[in-house]
């Protein structure tokens, strides 16, 4: 078996007095699809944001694609990391002053050094892939939340990342728009992309993930195939959480 694409050792993160992550060990294989579930405030977003160093960890090590990107208390090889890891946010965070195509093209040109024409070709191809060929020239304020989120996925994919991080990407969407985004993610998972997705969509976790992780209080409480974690959880905290989620 080859080296895991992500290796996290004893990852800690505090905000001042507040210890949010208290020692996370996690390895993710290339092509693996991992869903992270857990109550609000359990540190799921913080974990994702530490993986691409939007938050600087307080301790531990992170290796991505064989390169140490955090260790000895400081970030390393940040540029390489950000190229390897794409992220999609709950609030889309599209650039409102740029069209859909420009949103997808900008970093290709400025960061990867692609020509404008090459970048735009790639952008249109990706926008087609997420079902938005016709919206390529629209600005974000003319797109629905679901469409904006699909542009955001295309924007992250345009950098040819090795890993994609998704932080509750359907939570801000109207219910009828959720499915379109989940379909894109499912297709991406089928194509072999390595994905870590924080989600409240238990159905998605069950059907798409290779592994489901339950986090609570800044630690991984249990993990395993979704059938085990979701249907036969071993820990009381997991059972309680799932009980609350499924009841709602």
């Amino acid at each position, binding site marked *: 078996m080859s080296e895991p694409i992500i290796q996290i050792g004893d990852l800690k993160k505090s905000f001042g007095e507040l210890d949010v992550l208290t020692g996370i060990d996690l390895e993710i294989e290339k092509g693996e699809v991992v869903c992270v579930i857990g109550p609000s405030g359990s540190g799921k977003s913080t974990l994702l944001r530490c993986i*691409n160093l939007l938050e600087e960890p307080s301790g531990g090590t992170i290796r991505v694609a064989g390169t140490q990107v955090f260790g000895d208390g400081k970030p390393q090889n940040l540029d390489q990391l950000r190229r390897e890891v794409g*992220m999609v*946010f709950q609030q889309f965070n599209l*650039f*409102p*002053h740029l069209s859909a195509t420009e949103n997808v093209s900008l970093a290709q040109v400025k960061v990867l050094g692609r020509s404008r024409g090459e970048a735009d070709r790639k952008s249109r191809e990706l926008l087609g892939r997420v079902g938005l060929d016709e919206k390529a020239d629209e600005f974000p304020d003319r797109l629905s939340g679901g469409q904006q989120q699909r542009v955001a996925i295309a*924007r992250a994919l345009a950098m040819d990342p090795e890993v994609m991080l998704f932080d509750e990407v359907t939570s801000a969407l109207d219910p009828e728009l959720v499915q379109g985004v989940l379909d894109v993610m499912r297709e991406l998972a089928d194509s072999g992309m390595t994905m870590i997705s924080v989600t409240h969509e238990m159905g998605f976790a069950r059907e798409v993930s290779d592994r489901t992780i339950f986090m609570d209080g800044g630690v991984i409480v249990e993990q395993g195939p979704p059938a085990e974690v979701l249907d036969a959880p071993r820990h009381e905290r997991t059972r309680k959480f799932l009980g609350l989620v499924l009841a709602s």
Partner: protein
Amino acid sequence: MDAFFQTYFDFTIIEDNFGYVLEGFWWTIRLSILGGILSLLWGLVLAVLRQLPGKAFAPVRWLTVAYIDGLRGIPLLLVIFLIYGGLGALASEGVIPEAIGIPRWFGLPSPFWYGTIAITLTYGAYMAEVYRAGIEAVPSGQTEAARSLGMSHGQSMRFIIVPQAVRKVIPPLLNDFIALMKDTSLVSVIGLVETVQAGRDVYSETFNASALTLGAVLFLLVTIPLARFVDWMINRQNLKVQRGVP
């Protein structure tokens, strides 16, 4: 009532001195436009310096804040005298070349340039604060998205943050520009016959204020449409916010 009218609206005096006041107004316009453009640029530079990240740039940030607070804390009139007296003195001492100390660039007189420099230094500081408010009003998710795509701090400022910030602050910048335009009259103290000085010259010859009235009207011809335009822009922005457009 007649006396009042005579004092402020003597059309003979206005007619006789129209050219003279208009010439002064032309200086006002040139000072406003050049000072305005330079202030806009200098203010943006200051605002960006103030946002430089990390420990290494702490001294730069600190100096920038000190500059902005300092220049906003002293009267423009004083800055004009400082530039005028200071540059002139330094040039005559030979500390700086005369071309800089007593500037006559593009064939324009040195009071014009002293004034332009002083206005830029002061209004750059005001506008830096306006830009800062705009930069801080851009949601942090924008920076995070840019950074997660691998953009550097500089790229994210240049392509993502500043373009959005500038759009948000066009109305307050225009308000500052209106204030700047009125403040160009202060440059008269170092010998530039701009609108107000032209009006005063006529007044001291005729003991009649009509040329000053003319000056006021010329100012209003520019400032009122600008103020209306600012209002229109603010209304349009508010409508967008109500519609939930970012």
